[in-house]
């Protein structure tokens, strides 16, 4: 209750603001239409008109909710019109990309804290890599993979790995460096090998940082997959849904797909949070 009540009240506030905004933003179109038809529009009718447009500037919350409900429960989940089906397509590539990205990030961070050459050579380029507009190179990645005969899940997963490795890298480098001088000195005084220091000191100290970054990374992986889905032949997945909604001006469909994506991300983040609590609890780090 302590956790649900605040969320609910904030949500309520948002929904109210949202309705108000929907009325304000959709009103010009409603007035235009009325003017074209030569009718005049009293306020109640105006408000009613802003709630039911096909192409609203801002769909009302209930329209989005209905879009979501239709997408999720409106048909069999194997149907192409089902958001569950598209969500699944996106999720599988996201998980693959996240796994690749997280492993790469951890491996690179490990190399970087152990080797000055690695740090100095890689770090600036890792940063630069993230400034490359992903949407611009995603089509090339897809084309290059396709020319090598690789299509489907892998190219999308590579793009999502590209986006998700960076937060893991940054968090993990910071985490692996948290042990203070005394703890490192203790290890030295026992003449611990690098591997022992890594497994017994650096890694456990880094775990809180790792989990924090994994949460960011999994959301990034989802965005990466969605971006990868746009040029992958706009076939299936939440990204394709978003885009086709955009082509055909189906505002409600865009918003529904948007919320489905964000909901998926929230679920993934929550899952990592649960793993985090479990791990830290077992390690005695949760207090």
């Amino acid at each position, binding site marked *: 209750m302590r956790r649900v009540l605040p969320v609910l009240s904030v949500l309520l506030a948002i929904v109210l603001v949202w309705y108000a905004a929907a009325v304000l933003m959709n009103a010009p179109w409603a007035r235009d239409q009325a003017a074209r038809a030569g009718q005049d529009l009293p306020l109640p009718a105006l408000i009613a008109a802003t709630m039911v447009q096909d192409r609203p500037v801002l769909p009302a919350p209930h329209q989005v909710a209905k879009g979501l409900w239709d997408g999720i429960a409106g048909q069999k989940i194997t149907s192409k019109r089902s958001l569950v089906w598209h969500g699944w397509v996106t999720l599988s590539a996201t998980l693959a990309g996240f796994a690749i990205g997280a492993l790469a990030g951890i491996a690179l961070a490990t190399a970087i804290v152990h080797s000055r050459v690695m740090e100095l050579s890689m770090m600036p380029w890792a940063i630069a890599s993230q400034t490359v507009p992903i949407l611009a190179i995603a089509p090339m990645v897809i084309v290059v993979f396709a020319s090598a005969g690789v299509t489907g899940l892998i190219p999308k997963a590579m793009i999502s790995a590209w986006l998700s490795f960076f937060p893991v890298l940054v968090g993990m480098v910071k985490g692996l460096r948290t042990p203070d001088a005394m703890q490192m*000195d203790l290890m*030295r*005084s*026992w*003449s611990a090998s690098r591997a022992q220091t890594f497994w*017994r000191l650096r890694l*456990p100290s880094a775990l809180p940082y790792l989990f924090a970054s994994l949460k960011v990374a999994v959301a990034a992986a989802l965005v990466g997959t969605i971006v990868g889905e746009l040029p992958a032949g706009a076939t299936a997945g939440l990204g394709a849904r978003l885009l086709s909604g955009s082509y055909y001006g189906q505002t409600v469909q865009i918003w529904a797909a948007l919320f489905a994506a964000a909901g998926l991300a929230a679920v993934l983040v929550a899952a990592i949070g649960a793993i985090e609590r479990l791990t830290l609890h077992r390690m005695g780090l949760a*207090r």
Partner: protein
Amino acid sequence: MSVIEAKGVNLTFQTRDGPVHALKDVNLSIEKGDFVSFIGPSGCGKTTFLRTMAALETPSSGVLSVNGMTPDQARQRRAYGYVFQAPGLYPWRTISRNIALPLEIMGFSKADRQQRVARVLDLVELSAFGGKFPWQLSGGMQQRASIARALAFDADILLMDEPFGALDEIVRDRLNEALLELWQKTGKTIAFVTHSIPEAVYLSTKIVVMSPRPGRITRVIDSSLPRERPLDIRDSEDFIRLSHEVRDALREGHGDD
């Protein structure tokens, strides 16, 4: 044979506002089985010298040898047990597993580990707390756990940086006795930093008095006390004389500020 031999050791820290001369021209030789206390005002380089012995700092000049090797070689042979000024326990390990950590690293068998952990926990009177995490203990208990950790693997040389600073006198007395007993039984070489004159006199075969800015040794006092030392030796005449000698040496060192 000298276990530790320092000849003309200097150590300077480079800081943003100029160099700090933490050790100046330090000469000292410690024999096998010695119990050497270091005493001196704060900032005089006690910690720094201990760290240099353990190869955690490198002298700017001079020679330091440990068992005829460089400190670094000695470290690799795991010659040291080191107790730091702060406990430095790992929050994600219980007290027992904290103590077992160096044993794991050094490859002791599991059975051996368990038995050693039990022994040292008993020694520092923490047997009931092996299963607790460090942050569930008071400061003094944590410090005792850290002492137990350094004792567990029976290094020949023990370096202890104010290990008993956070303990009350009763526990301190008991641990002093236990430490002396351990030292007598095992013939370890111990270097021990303290701020307490009675503690230094009670424990040591050799008391090194240091003085700051630059950090240097001003007196080395050899103890005339026998190796067997019941607690009430502290009321003996020899003890009181030695205490006065140390206090005077300390005061001299303070004279220049």
